[in-house]
């Protein structure tokens, strides 16, 4: 019995045992999308939110009006940051499997988003990340040891043991504290940008959420406030196709691109190849320039793929096709930038292997140092008294009393 009023229930193109099918992903040829003036009004941006900005073609050659014309040295820095992010992730995943840390989230396949965007912004610009933006910390030069100390909740942990692994922050690096609840940072970034405008400085704010989290009301709060006040903010939806087990159709991606929600609110929307370092860099540079001249906010959708599990608590073999990342039509961001640099004559397999070995050694040495500050099971431990600090600026009477009780309880054990 068919009933035309029955619900549409989005179904991903391939489940376990089926062949990966990405024909639903709308692609534009590399170099085909025009680049509007930075002062263009949101309503005059045409189809920027439904096409796909791409710079690197299949041969690794940079083409079209969005080429950022970066010096090869800059590109090599970008490649280094992406590769370091990947090697760091892989090593931390293994330490979790070995029981050394309680939880981990990789950004495999999405490294270009964090690294290229961070490089296209200024150090004073404020970043409001999600939990899959480790490339931001690496690009801003936060030492790996600091990140590892957080993962270990050890005596040098920036969060003093209060947060799950990967919920980093960096006050000096202008990277805001990660919540763990979804999408909350998106409208907060708009507020930060509004303050920058109120204070008449030229810093911009940038924030990231997954396409799955764009379902939260906070996504809509962010777009609305950004639109009303034309705040200097860059709002990024990292469309990695999967929110744990739920594919992007359940966030509304089947009917319209996520970038197209920008024009719906009267702000600029761009859809970009999130695995193309040069394209991500270029659209971010464009959006930041718009924000700095007062031309308003930009919503960027990065079309990418979550090549790994959601987290160490997840098993994607239960809900999606095996080896699907290998069939992703936009390839791998590290391999594509590497191919581009080789095509330019500025890189080689030998140099790449040497870099990977160097970064491997850096990660290993950093881990060796981090564990001297304690692990979950061995070495020095944070003082449990710290649990009661920072609930308020000054510790109130009832917490002072509870801290005494906690000390007595530990003494009694």
């Amino acid at each position, binding site marked *: 019995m068919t009933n035309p009023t029955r619900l549409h229930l989005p179904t991903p193109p391939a489940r376990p045992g089926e062949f990966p099918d990405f024909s639903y992903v709308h692609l534009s040829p590399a170099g085909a999308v025009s680049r509007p003036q930075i002062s263009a009004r949101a309503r005059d941006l045409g189809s920027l939110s439904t096409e796909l900005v791409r710079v690197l073609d299949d041969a690794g050659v940079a083409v079209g009006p969005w080429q950022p014309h970066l010096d090869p040295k800059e590109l090599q820095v970008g490649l280094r940051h992406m590769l370091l992010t990947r090697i760091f992730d892989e090593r931390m995943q293994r330490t979790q499997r070995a029981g050394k840390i309680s939880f981990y989230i990789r950004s495999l396949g999405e490294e270009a988003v964090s690294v290229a965007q961070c490089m296209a912004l200024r150090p004073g610009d404020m970043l409001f990340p999600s939990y899959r933006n480790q490339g931001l910390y690496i690009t801003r030069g936060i030492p790996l040891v600091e990140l590892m100390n957080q993962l270990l909740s050890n005596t040098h942990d920036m969060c003093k043991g209060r947060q799950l*692994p990967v919920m980093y922050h960096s006050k000096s690096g202008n990277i805001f504290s990660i919540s763990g*609840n979804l999408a909350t940072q998106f409208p907060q970034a708009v507020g930060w940008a509004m303050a920058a405008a109120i204070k008449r400085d030229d810093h911009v704010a940038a924030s990231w959420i997954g396409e799955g989290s764009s*379902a*939260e009301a906070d996504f809509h709060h962010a777009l609305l406030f950004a639109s009303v006040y034309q705040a200097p903010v860059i709002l990024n939806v990292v469309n990695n196709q999967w929110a744990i087990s739920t594919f992007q159709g359940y966030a509304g991606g089947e009917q319209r691109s996520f970038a197209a929600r920008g024009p719906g609110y009267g702000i600029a929307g761009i859809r970009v190849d999130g695995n193309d370092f040069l394209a991500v860099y270029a659209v971010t540079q464009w959006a930041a320039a718009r924000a700095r001249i007062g031309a308003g906010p930009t919503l960027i959708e990065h079309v990418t793929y979550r090549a790994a599990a959601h987290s160490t608590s997840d098993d994607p073999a239960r809900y999606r096709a095996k080896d699907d990342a290998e069939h992703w039509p936009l390839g791998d961001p590290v391999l594509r930038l590497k191919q581009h640099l080789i095509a330019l004559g500025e890189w080689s397999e030998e140099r790449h292997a040497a870099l990977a070995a160097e970064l491997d050694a850096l990660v290993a040495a950093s881990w060796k140092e981090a564990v001297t500050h304690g692990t979950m099971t061995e070495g020095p431990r944070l003082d449990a008294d710290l*649990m*009661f600090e920072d609930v308020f600026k000054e510790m109130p009477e*009832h917490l002072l009393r509870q801290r005494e009780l906690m000390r007595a309880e530990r003494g*009694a054990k």
Partner: protein
Amino acid sequence: MAAMNMIQALNSAMDIMLGRDPSVVLLGEDIGYFGGVFRATEGLQRKYGEHRVLDTPIAEGGIVAAAIGMGVNGLRPVAEIQFADYIYPGIDQIASELARIRYRSAGDFFAPVTIRTPCGGGIRGGQTHSQSPEAILTHISGLKVVMPSNPHDAKGLLITSIEDDDPVIFFEPKRLYNGPFDGDPNKPAVPWSAHPKGQVNEGHYTVPLGKADVVRRGAHVTVITYGTMVFVALAAAAALGVDAEIIDLRSLVPLDVDTLCTSVKKTGRCVVAHEATRFGGFGAEILALVQENCFWDLEAPIQRVTGWDTPYPHAFEWEYFPGQERVKRALSLVMEAA
């Protein structure tokens, strides 16, 4: 009867209700094809179809609101909020809408929604996967609030909640999903299959809301508790050698005041224990009720055992958790008082 852990018991309750009542629908994040991040809905979409077991966008406010709309239109929705820590975006729809639709429409409209949500710590979840926000919900008039401590009760209470025409917030202490936990993380885990409450009737049965369970009879002190703390309290009283009467509330609203007061009048001493923070916690309500009803029978001031008034810290989970030491200290205080 079959051996079930709490997840299997909850799954069985939903399976039975989907089978018995075509108006029952499930909705939530990752609950359909995947079967839920804790696997509570495993196999149910395959069995009942995509129109009965719906995956949703990640939008707790949207999930609750949609459940209300479905409920008003004759369905009996069971919504899952993936972690109790994520319920806050749904609070406006719960507090201002779900709890009051019957009242504000003078009974013309109602929404028989059940909201299931895993709560509590002890799984290294840090400050956003460990909270026990039950007191925030019990403070809202018009909601029933339930928290089982074992598979048998979980199934019977969930069936009752789904059949109830009023909204029910159904908290699931996730540390108890796989076995009774006595508060000692260093001991080997005990599975439910080794516990009498892990033997569950495979058919339809109910456990009434508003009826507490006296899990241990005792003469000297009454321990009023629920959820994760039930087995901690049992172990602490045994370790201390106190003849405690231990009461598992099971349902916070409605509350079985008679059972509590009968016990306290008998023992003359009372300890209230929950995992949630202390200040303004549900324990304060119990304390007030016991004091109002049993003042002249009390031999000692009532003691509370709770989590500290801080967020739940990742690195200090067991310093935060109200384990056996904290319960023993409270028991000692009420027993020592003249």
